[in-house]
């Protein structure tokens, strides 16, 4: 594939085949993103000459966690080896090119500008190191949020060890500075999915009336809780499922790990099979009226377990940091 248009056509022809399988779908996303990067690099080299130094391009957010739905937006960054104004200029331009390429291939721009076209997310190794340190030391709400975003980073092109080494450093600082509780507080807000009467709480107004917001009410508790445990256990993996696998018995007993793994995978597949994912917005909502009684019961279980997991993690961290 030599152009973004060809990539988009490829995506449109292929996604239908894998749209109901979580792993295959995310493999396809990886392949598409990789192709976009390749085309972008070729464009850059044609226009501005060869890549000036080794680098890595990494995805964050749901792509970083290998948890994209059929449609998702783009969150990404670049780490390059050497520091100079020209090199920075080059990689920022590359970042812009990739963002455009991803956009043309069907990935919406990120509202919060977490993109390699933004100098904040496109830096040399040494600058990244300084920035991560200052985020940790500053430890304001926004800085902690950015650290948590960074921790979900997964390298898709170039030198993965650039990212790995930085992440190890971040973990170290979090432990040294005792920031885990701050990280907990950063993602503490939990949108309730089940009411006191045991009913599923759906949207009451708007186009998604009667649907469950699975992104905020079901996925977030799992993703956020497991991310915190991953930081605690120095786990570099980014997918929620592999993080769960790697947790030690102390962080989460194996019987619970198996339960949450099963529930989370079921949730990912529900999202693909039961929502009407014709665009980015819709893929976050599950229309309740189209579900069977059994499916509703399963959703309730998933919501309940998500809340339990989140409470467990909260208690674990609060106990330890005191």
């Amino acid at each position, binding site marked *: 594939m030599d152009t973004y248009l060809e990539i988009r056509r490829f995506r449109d022809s292929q996604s239908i085949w894998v749209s109901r399988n979580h792993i295959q779908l995310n493999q396809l996303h990886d392949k598409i993103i990789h192709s976009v990067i390749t085309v972008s690099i070729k464009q850059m080299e044609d226009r501005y000459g060869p890549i000036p130094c080794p680098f890595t391009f990494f995805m964050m957010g749901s792509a970083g966690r290998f948890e994209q739905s059929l449609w998702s937006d783009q969150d990404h960054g670049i780490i390059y080896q050497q520091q100079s104004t020209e090199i920075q200029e080059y990689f920022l331009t590359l970042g812009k090119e990739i963002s455009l390429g991803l956009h043309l291939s069907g990935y919406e721009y990120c509202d919060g500008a977490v993109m390699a076209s933004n100098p904040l997310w496109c830096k040399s190794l040494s600058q990244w190191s300084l920035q991560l340190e200052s985020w940790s030391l500053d430890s304001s709400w926004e800085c902690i949020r950015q650290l948590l975003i960074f921790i979900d980073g997964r390298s898709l092109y170039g030198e993965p060890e650039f990212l790995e080494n930085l992440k190890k450093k971040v973990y170290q600082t979090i432990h040294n500075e005792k920031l885990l509780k701050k990280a907990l507080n950063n993602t503490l807000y939990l949108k*309730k999915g*089940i009411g*006191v*009467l045991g009913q599923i*709480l759906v949207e*009451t*107004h*708007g*186009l*998604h009336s009667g649907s469950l917001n699975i992104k905020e009410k079901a996925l977030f508790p799992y993703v956020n809780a497991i991310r915190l445990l991953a930081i605690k256990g120095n786990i570099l993996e980014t997918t929620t499922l592999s993080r769960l696998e790697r947790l030690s018995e102390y962080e989460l007993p194996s019987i619970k790990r198996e339960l949450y793994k099963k529930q989370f995978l079921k949730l990912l597949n529900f999202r693909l099979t039961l929502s009407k994912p014709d665009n980015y917005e819709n893929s976050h909502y599950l229309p309740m009226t189209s579900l069977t009684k059994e499916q509703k019961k399963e959703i309730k279980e998933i919501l309940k377990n998500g809340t339990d997991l989140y409470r467990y993690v909260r208690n674990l961290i609060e106990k330890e940091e005191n």
Partner: protein
Amino acid sequence: MDTLFLMNSLWVMVGAILVILMIGGFILLETGSTRMKNAGHIAGKTILTFGISSIIFWAVGYGLIFGEGNPLIGLSDFFYSGYEVEGLALSGSVFFLFQLAFAGISLTIAFGGFAERAKLGAYLVFAVLFSVIVYPPIAHWIWGGGWLAEHGKQDFAGSTVVHLTGAMAALAATLILKPRIGKYNKDGSANNLAGHNQVFTALSVLILWVGWFGFNAGSTVSVDGAFFGFVAINTNLAAGAGVIAAMIISWMVMGKADVPMMLNGALAGLVAITASCAFVDTWAAVLIGFISGLLVFYSIRFFESKKIDDPIAALSVHGTAGVWGTLSTGLFATPELATVGQPGLFYGGGLHQLGVQALGVVSSGAFAFIVSFILLTIMKSVMNGLRVTEEEEIIGLDMSEHGSYGYPEMVKVEKTAIESKLNA
């Protein structure tokens, strides 16, 4: 002059002032619950229509309600000039002013059903028609010695006369006007056209809550035995129970303690206790208020699901709670307090009083709805529609009806954005 006469007059005068201040509560309620672009219009028209209502009440309203006539309507005492009224233990002009305030409140409630889409002209014409043809007959039936008064209908301060009548006119209006642009999606789901200022709405509830002491406790029209204190307690308790109930139910069902819902719960409690405040024990007042808080929650959801767009929940707060309040005295009126009519079902009065209350609700409600519907339908054809054009509705009634925005700086930004899109 007799001291009791003077004190009665003074107390009811205070009541009248409090009730007129409730118009201020309604201004904040209605503007707070609607969008910024209509705020100036809503505030202004509320004062304007109270003016119209006052003049009409003086000219004919008072006479149609309290004049000599038949069980259906009064036919004397037009253009009241301040004379004393035979048989009244207070100043005639104070009583007149107190009643004028009630008529103004009922009309203001009716206009809830017009909000954010009716032409100013429709407000003006309906203000006159409502004040002559809709409100006075019902007030005469129940308070003016008409046929329902003869049956012993208990409506101490006007759950039926003021609130249900206003709400039924609002229902007719909202059915004829149809929902606001953007309220419903193509698939039938409803959007939340959120009000622009919850602080206004909350403040309005407090003003109305305090004003209600004039409305209910003032309706004793006498200081004899200082009974007004008891009425005020019941009023306060019902409002308190209403807000708590609405909070609990919205938290239980939706998972959130919805602020507009809590506020509507307080108002529903006030509306419901309006009929029964002088006839029931304090515990019953708590229960009546609590139930109205639950009812208003389901009522708002019901109307919304039926595609009846009720921007300030007038149908639920004044209609549903008004019906419940009127029926409640048929259940809870105690033998000692039932100075009008008979004790309620739970006090050995059997179904008699409940039946009288139901008859009052059905006949008054049906009359208010049918007459309003006919009047508005005629107005619609004569006035070439009651609703502003789509463009006017989108730029807001502040601009289309009055030529200036209530919040000029704020709305200008929004408007420029829309225009730049249009011209892009």
